[in-house]
């Protein structure tokens, strides 16, 4: 069998515009799923991470169980839970986009919560004591003193986790969401050129994730050791 990469060129529109960006006849798009997942997952992750550090047991225990539970099961399992169980239980049908977004936000928040926790713990105790001494309340201390410094320490691991999430969005294709991976499958069903097509989308994913990791490294250098 000879390789013929022109198949990529002929289907470039569908793969990139529909599959990667999500504009076209299908609801889809790797980017359209990845960006809200990252933003919402991070917001939920902040709450989970702070919950794990709380002195109140009714916040700390559920947050800890949440993290331990979702870190102990595969993402595919979470996607199936949401995909299959919500229609059964609530008698409503949610579209693939909603299923995938919910699954990613819930799942990644567990990992992002751990990063937030480590980041907050990395802020020296003296900072909190000084903030309290100058008369800030504990929520003011968190908002104006601890979180800004913690965020700086978190950036490298956060970007790494965003890269993981970006790659994980490919799993949305399992439930039929038309992302880059699904688009390649659709084109492959017609053209039967698996080697060329999957290698091409591997390269597209790689360009995105590698540039993210380069950016993380340069940020790390610029911000210096905390």
């Amino acid at each position, binding site marked *: 069998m000879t390789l013929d990469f022109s198949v990529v060129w002929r289907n470039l529109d569908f793969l990139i515009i529909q599959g990667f960006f999500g504009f076209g006849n299908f609801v889809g798009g790797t980017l359209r799923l990845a960006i809200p997942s990252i933003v919402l997952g991070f917001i939920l992750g902040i709450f989970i991470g702070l919950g794990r550090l709380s002195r109140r047991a009714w916040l700390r225990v559920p947050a800890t169980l949440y993290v331990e539970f979702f870190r102990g099961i595969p993402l595919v*399992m979470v996607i199936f839970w949401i995909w299959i169980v919500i229609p059964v239980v609530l008698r409503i049908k949610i579209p693939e986009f909603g299923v995938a977004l919910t699954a990613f936000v819930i799942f990644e928040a567990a990992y992002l919560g751990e990063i937030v926790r480590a980041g907050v713990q990395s802020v020296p105790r003296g900072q909190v004591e000084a903030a309290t001494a100058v008369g800030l309340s504990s929520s003011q201390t968190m908002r104006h003193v601890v979180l800004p410094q913690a965020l700086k320490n978190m950036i490298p691991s956060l970007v790494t986790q965003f890269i993981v999430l970006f790659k994980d969005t490919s799993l949305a294709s399992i439930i039929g969401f038309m992302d880059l991976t699904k688009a390649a499958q659709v084109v492959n069903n017609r053209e039967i050129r698996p080697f060329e097509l*999957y290698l091409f989308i591997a390269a597209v994913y790689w360009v995105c994730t590698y540039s993210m990791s380069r950016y993380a490294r340069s940020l790390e250098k610029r911000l210096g050791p905390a």
Partner: protein
Amino acid sequence: MALVNYRFDWSVLWTGESGRWLLSGLITTLELAACAWILAVALGILSGALRTVPFRPLRVLATFYVEFFRNVPLLVWMFFWYFGVPPLLPESVREWLFSHGLEFWAAVCALGVYSGARFSEVLRSGIQSIPRTQLEASVASGLTVLQAYRFVILPIALRLIIPPATNESLNLLKNSSVALTISVAELTFQTRQIETYTAKAIEALTAGTVIYLVLCVSLAAVMSWVERRTAIPGLIVGGRQRA
């Protein structure tokens, strides 16, 4: 709430074929994870070592392997090894693969090569975190470089990487569920099969979820015991912090 209309029937998990499916799914998951783990560790050690040799082409090759394979989704690698690679193989190899469970070996390759790139980073950072003075002191006290690695550097490095390596191994175990996309009959696949046959989604998914949780929690517990047992007194190993 419509939840009240759902009738739980947990007996679907042990009546009929379900129990056997779950067990065979569990066994396939463990086999897949074990084979992929061996491949991943071998590739991780090899590429991790090659990244430190004083010969540029080999270093570039190892770096390329690590950066390319770990930055692309595992699912894409599954499709690549399952659909993309076999047509390029010679006829006889292909015949053999088709009659010996092609999807299983494709999944082993995908998972092993992907995780190997991640293991490589763990090993490299483990070895790099040991101060150079350790090596210099060993050589000064009369050991050869090989002996220094064998008796000083590696025993410390391997202890240091227990927590991150455990983490990666658990990731590998959980990631093996992606193999269901190329129809390897592992645990998640069997869970879905039970759900399809019995229409009892919640029971089937609960069974699968609990099995994964038990696997991960017990593996983590065993490894943290190993970490405590192998800790060198006086040397902070793993940097475990009390919250």
